[in-house]
């Protein structure tokens, strides 16, 4: 019996020793793993954007989107986020929606721009989506809900449009986990406070959207993605109250009015 125990221990020790020596090698560097993972990620991101833009009309006029860009730049600069890591896309659609796509693509629908009453409402929604990007929620959701098959299909199969469209449907019209949504809300309040933008716009937007849901009908996509509960509005306000700061508008009243008018004319 003793002999067998010793033999067993030697076997375990042998396995542990080989594991120990294998651990001494920098395999990641040797096999260029980081490079491979990065290129696979980039490929997925490109495919997603390509299919999405193909199916939707992106407004390329930078004068139209310049005010949104200014809000985005303020939030990024004040929160040590590399502005170049987030690409803004304004899409022509009557849906009241904004969301993040893999690869740091922030999508804003003209329906949302039409709906918001002031820059703090728009900044609140944008801050929430930037938080999803920065906290890597998009890729987490991809892995969890869309699944491995899609990711494999996209990296190996050369981009099956239908598969990506299905995945896009999930990314653009369903919610993240409750915890992830809460994290994004709290992070957004932090972004807004550091950027000297009024956080109250974010909760006001949620409340107003919930009230006007009946009038807007099917166009309120953002409500299905971001359930506006009382709890949620409450903790946004609670988080905001903890941070006392001076509010400094990003856009002047005239710029905001011109921005809204431009989009109304477009409609």
């Amino acid at each position: 019996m003793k002999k067998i125990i010793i033999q067993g221990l030697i076997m375990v020790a042998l396995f542990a020793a080989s594991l120990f020596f294998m651990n001494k090698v920098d395999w990641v560097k040797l096999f260029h793993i980081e490079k491979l993972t990065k290129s696979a990620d980039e490929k997925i991101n490109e495919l997603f954007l390509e299919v999405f833009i193909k199916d939707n009309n992106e407004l390329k006029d930078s004068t139209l989107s310049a005010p949104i860009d200014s809000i985005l730049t303020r939030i990024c600069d004040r929160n040590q986020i590399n502005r170049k890591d987030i690409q803004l896309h304004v899409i022509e659609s009557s849906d009241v929606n904004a969301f993040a796509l893999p690869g740091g693509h922030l999508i804003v629908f003209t329906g949302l721009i039409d709906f918001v009453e002031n820059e703090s409402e728009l900044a609140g929604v944008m801050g929430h989506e930037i938080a999803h990007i920065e906290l890597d929620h998009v890729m987490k959701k991809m892995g969890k809900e869309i699944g491995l098959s899609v990711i494999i299909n996209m990296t190996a199969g050369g981009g099956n449009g239908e598969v990506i469209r299905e995945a896009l449907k999930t990314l653009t019209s369903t919610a993240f986990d409750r915890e992830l949504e809460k994290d994004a809300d709290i992070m957004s309040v932090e972004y807004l406070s550091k950027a000297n933008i009024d956080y109250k716009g974010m909760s006001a937007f949620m409340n107003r959207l919930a009230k006007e849901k009946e009038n807007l009908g099917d166009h309120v996509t953002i409500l299905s993605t971001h359930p506006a509960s009382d709890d949620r509005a409450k903790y946004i306000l609670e988080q905001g109250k903890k941070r006392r700061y001076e509010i400094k508008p990003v856009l002047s009243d005239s710029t905001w009015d011109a921005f809204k008018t431009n989009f109304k004319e477009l409609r």
Partner: protein
Amino acid sequence: MNPEIKFQYKVTDPELEKASNSYVMSLMAVMVGLPMPIVNLLATLFFYIGNRKQTYFVRWHCMQALLSQASVLIVNSYGFWWSVSIIFTEATISNRYIAFMITAFIFNLTEIILTIYTAVKTRKGEHINWWFYGGLTDLICRK
């Protein structure tokens, strides 16, 4: 080793075939069960149950094949769930992961080679007593 010395009776040809098949079975299970390690153990276990009323020689070799599968199962299961966590969670491919996988591969390869060797030798009428697993089988397998 001559099986007659250890088992103290003349082992017949059908017994040699059955004992050898237990290793072939475990080998097949390794191949099929690599992506889902539990298949290895289940297959060998079913083979052992199917042969539990056989002679001591056959049972002994089925048990040795089963025990060797058990340690491979532990290693492969750990590797399997680690891989799953890399695909579905935030875990990434690290040096530790690759080191474990290479070690597991060497471990599996050694097991496969030994299994083929034992299957051939057993079929030819030789008794192969594996280091550690042979002693453990002596303890577990009753005459």
